[in-house]
């Protein structure tokens, strides 16, 4: 049994409530009280082909933060998702020497080793979110005190990645 998902969209500045559920190969939606049934397929280049009772259309879709952009036959739309996504596209690091993930993603590689001395700006981890790789660099000179993740691991927002002991401010 497929579940119904309700989404509060804002399209081109107007509120729109959409509910969607999968029904075999079809999709059943309710948009502003109107029922819509369609088939949708996304090809390898990311282009959607959608078939409704009105015919077949091709749509391009892009995402940035909580915004979605749609292009269909010369016309563009901007749809905003209020609560679903984090506002920020990239995995950013909340300050201090203890690094935490600001966004769900995957650890591509741990570049440093436990006990290794690092200098500010040096790459320590490579993360991936939404198909974008982000290098996590040391916020200060120091020694790697703990590594909480390994390559290939999935991480959630707020997960602790790595601890850094700042070196003495001798220089």
């Amino acid at each position, binding site marked *: 049994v497929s579940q119904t*998902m309700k*989404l509060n*969209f804002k*399209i*081109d500045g*107007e509120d*729109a409530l*959409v509910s*969607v*559920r*999968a029904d075999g190969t079809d*999709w059943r*939606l309710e*948009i*502003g009280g109107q029922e*819509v049934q*369609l088939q*949708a397929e*996304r090809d*390898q*280049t*990311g282009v*959607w082909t*959608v078939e*409704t009772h009105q015919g077949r259309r091709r*749509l*391009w*879709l*892009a*995402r*940035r933060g909580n915004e*979605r*952009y*749609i*292009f*269909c*036959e*010369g*016309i*563009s*739309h901007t*749809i905003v*998702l209020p609560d*679903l996504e984090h506002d920020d596209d*990239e995995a950013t690091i909340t300050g201090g020497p203890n690094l935490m993930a600001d966004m*769900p*993603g*995957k650890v591509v590689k741990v570049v440093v080793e436990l006990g290794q001395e690092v200098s500010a700006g040096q*790459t320590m981890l490579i993360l*991936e979110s*939404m*198909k*974008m*790789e*982000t*290098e996590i*660099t040391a916020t200060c000179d120091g020694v790697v005190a703990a590594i909480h993740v390994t390559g290939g691991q*999935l*991480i*959630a927002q707020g997960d602790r990645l790595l601890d850094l002991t700042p070196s003495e401010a001798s220089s």
Partner: protein
Amino acid sequence: MNTRLQVEHPVTELATGTDLVRTQIRVAEGRPLPWTQAEISIRGHAIECRIYAEDPEQDFRPSLGELLVVSEPSGPGIRVDSGVRQGDEVTMFYDPLIAKLCVHGDTRAAAIDRAVAALKSYAVLGVKTNIEYLIAILQQPKFAQGDFHTGFIAEHMDRWRSGRDADADLALAVTAVAEYTHLRRGSATSGDEGTEEMPTPWDTLGHFRIKGMG
């Protein structure tokens, strides 16, 4: 003599079958012109549409930001001279010209139809563009008749409004389907929407890096 290349040179090239840039370089090398004026004839009709990152609903103000999607049309009689690629940024430092879409057809009507079809499959996402506005100009009956002048925009496009309201439900539907697919996969997995079963080139090509990140 004015040795500059016109910004509309693709129109001349399409209508005469010449390559003006190549010819200009040859001439600069001291070689003679490859043809005489008498050998040049005009065939069919060519139209150039300049694709701009600008907002027709905000007085054509430049629309800045990253080009998340750039998908250029292609096919017989379609030529795209473009200066940007997907992932590039439209900044305040340059003219927000994205590309020149040039089409050729045997008749004016055929060239217009071709231009409209090409614009309808010219997806640019991440910034506002004049694509819908260009289609509206091409679809003006007076434009089809060749009856245009410098006051054309003021006279015929003054009351133009975007037709996106009529299209909104389809956009909402596809976005909902894409989000559903994306969220059902779990937000902790990497990747983009709708690739659940099928490996995409992005999965098999390995990791790529966006410039300026990290």
